[in-house]
């Protein structure tokens, strides 16, 4: 390689090295390898049911793998408690639970530990700083369960970041959000990756909203993954090889469409990006 981005010289935050996992005869991950670096925004793109959530659970250590190595900050599956922040999919907060946004963010500091601890001035400062970073100051004292989906998403991101992880995982954070909230959350996460030296790894079934900010992409289908910059991966030849049949990648008004030949099933293509001809 002749041109090396500045980031490539740094050790990756997350490395997948030949990772395989199957549920029965169904291959979820088939010799998958990729890397994620600090300060970068990486999209995990694939259609629904392709195994994005399972891949994230593998990183979190709540799902075992059958072979391969996973390294976080260069060490094998250790220190996941502090070094990984996680925003799960489809979180629904019970509106009856008396807890404010700021209390929930503070829970991110040490909720896995036993005992009561008095919040220090430093703790409070960090919580305030995070609430401001995700633009949640105006509803910091509101009940978490009363907030809208987009607002709750911001608080969940602040909760995940307050323990200063080097890797932030988000599982379909854009699903069920209105278009304006999608744009806001994407811009927010891009900003977080760039300014906080955090590797943001976000799963989505629709990549168009992420195209302006995505530094790298991990494209998952049928257990296999292609990774690289968006220009390297979202190409006809690369995706055709990945799918095992010919697909075209069209650029249209700044959006990407992945189109399969007539007759081939498009069920496994990321939704909204397949061209449907009536």
């Amino acid at each position, binding site marked *: 390689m002749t041109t090396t981005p500045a980031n490539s010289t740094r050790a990756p935050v997350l490395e997948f090295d030949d990772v395989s996992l199957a549920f029965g005869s169904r291959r979820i991950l088939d010799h998958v390898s990729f890397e994620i670096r600090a300060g970068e925004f990486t999209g995990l793109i694939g259609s629904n049911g392709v195994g994005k959530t399972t891949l994230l659970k593998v990183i*979190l250590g709540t799902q075992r793998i059958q072979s391969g190595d996973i390294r976080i900050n260069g060490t094998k599956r250790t220190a*996941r408690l502090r070094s990984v922040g996680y925003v*799960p999919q489809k979180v629904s907060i019970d509106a*009856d639970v*008396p807890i404010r946004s700021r209390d929930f963010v503070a829970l991110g500091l040490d909720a896995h530990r036993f*005992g009561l601890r008095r919040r220090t001035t430093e703790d409070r400062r960090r919580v305030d700083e995070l609430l401001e970073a995700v633009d949640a100051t105006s509803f910091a004292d*509101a009940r978490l369960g009363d907030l809208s989906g987009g607002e709750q998403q911001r608080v969940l991101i602040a909760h995940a970041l307050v323990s200063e992880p080097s890797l932030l995982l988000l599982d379909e954070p854009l699903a069920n959000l209105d278009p304006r909230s999608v744009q806001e959350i994407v811009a927010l996460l891009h900003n977080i990756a760039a300014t906080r030296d955090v590797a943001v790894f976000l799963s989505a079934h629709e990549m168009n909203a992420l195209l302006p900010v995505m530094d790298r992409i991990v494209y998952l289908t049928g257990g296999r993954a292609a990774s690289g910059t968006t220009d390297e991966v979202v190409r006809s030849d690369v995706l055709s090889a990945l799918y095992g049949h010919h697909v075209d990648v069209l650029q249209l008004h700044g959006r990407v469409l992945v189109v399969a030949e007539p007759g081939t099933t498009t069920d496994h293509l990321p939704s909204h990006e397949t061209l449907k001809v009536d």
Partner: protein
Amino acid sequence: MINAWEVGTMVAVVAGVVGFFVVLRGSAFPAHAIPNGAFAGAAGANLMGISPLLGLGAFSLLGAVAIGTLGRRTRSDVATALVLVLMLALGAAFLSQSTEYEPQIFSLLFGEILGVSTSQLTPVLIIGAVCILATFAMFRQLMLTCLVPDIAHSKGLRPAVVDLMFLVIVAGATTMTVPVVGALLIFTLMIGPPAAARCLTHRPGVAMALSVAISVSVVWAAIASSFQSNWPVGFFVGVFSAAWYGVARLAHTALRARRTTLATAISYTAAS
């Protein structure tokens, strides 16, 4: 006989603390099943001529562990119902063999706040203190696992294990309170005051403190009313708990309506 006020206060504090999470975590059904099952343990202990507290403790713990472990495999409400039914059946069998029938059942189900013996006081105090300490120790874990179990799991907490540990705390609270307020009434005290408290504030710490305060006020008012009217304490505990919840719920709805009207007014002003 020891002071009803002292015993009542003790029970109210434990119910307020443990009940806070019973309500938040949606464990009302287990909190109903464990004391009712524990009643069978007390009946069994009575039959064998050992301390009812031992029977209560053993059956509460057994019930909690059964609900916690079975609930992981099948739907937890079904598991809870099965445990409840099985323990009640045992209770029926034990009672049928017992000679002292009616007054015994009555006091186990509805309590005998005015007839607690001094020998029971120390174990009741110790179990109560352990329950409160354990709840405080697990405060943040209980909070996180009930709000977003997936995040808790990613932090290395096992939601099912946390759930089981909490049910054991409920079993402890049951053991200490059943002799005093009875199997049916401890459930009232664990649900009403915390459910009222969570309507009145957004802050978790304040909500728990309120839960304890409301619980204590209910018990005191119930004892006083019982002295006055000669009606059972349990009747007043149930009525006052429900009344507190009703009032808090109304206040909550009224506050929310006012906030919404205000927000709408502001957005109209901003738009025009």
